């Protein structure tokens, strides 16, 4: 039951994009997302003797989400929010519109309960089924649909927009 190196890389190729998209809506910084994805895979590789390839992707998801939560906690403790805002500030008019939309979404997602937000992002990006999402997040399988519904309704209210 030892994880093979090529299986690890195959998983990375499979999950890099969905992981990045989910993590970016939590961390909002490309470098941090890359670091979290990298660190998650390194941690899994360190425990390769206990990892089954059939559950590799789920383990990577769980590890990456935990690392992202830790990073957010660390940020709240040590880094003032204003610094993050400055770092993301747009430089052109076109970027300004994207920036404002991104900021609205960011604020809206921030106001969702953490698990509901995770469910919403995983449903949208991960390609995992409901039971798999439940396993990754450690929640009852039956609550995935209801949390997703709740999160979408709440997001609709917060964004006040019928586009989506």
């Amino acid at each position, binding site marked *: 039951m030892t994880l093979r190196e090529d299986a690890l890389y195959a998983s990375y190729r499979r999950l890099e994009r969905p992981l990045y998209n989910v993590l970016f809506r939590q961390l909002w910084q490309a*470098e941090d997302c890359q670091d979290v994805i990298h660190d998650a895979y390194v941690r899994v590789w360190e425990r390769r003797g206990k990892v089954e390839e059939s559950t590799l992707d789920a383990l990577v998801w769980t590890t990456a989400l935990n690392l992202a939560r830790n990073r957010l906690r660390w940020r709240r403790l040590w880094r003032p929010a204003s610094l993050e805002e400055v770092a993301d500030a747009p430089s052109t008019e076109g970027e300004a519109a994207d920036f404002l939309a991104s900021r609205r*979404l960011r604020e809206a997602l921030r106001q969702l309960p953490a698990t509901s937000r995770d469910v919403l992002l995983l449903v*949208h*990006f991960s390609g995992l089924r409901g039971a798999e999402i439940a396993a990754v997040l450690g929640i009852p399988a039956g609550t995935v649909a209801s949390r997703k519904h709740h999160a979408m309704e709440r997001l609709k209210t917060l964004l006040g927009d019928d586009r989506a």
Partner: protein
Amino acid sequence: MRDLSPWLPDLDPPPGGLARLRRSVQIVRPQGYWRRVGIAACAMLVLASVGLPAALQRYRSQAELSEALRQAVQPVVPNGLQVVGGAAIALESGQPGVQLYLVQSARAAAAAPR
């Protein structure tokens, strides 16, 4: 709100992630490395705690005997030996004109059966 795509567009991850992971995987310690290091360190400690007192004791005995011998061969007393911190016991040599002495450290002499 059925489709989140306008709000959540699919983003491209920055390039170079896989190459970075490959580099890291090459330098990750083999599995159980730190456990093996810990076991080796504990074994060294156990060996040291058992072997060190014995080695010290052996060294001390040899040092005491060397000191007793050094004093014994110094001709301080005519026709005799002077040993401080030890004992010189005269033995039968079996040859005329030859005197044998058993020189011991004080501790070894005290422990010897009479």
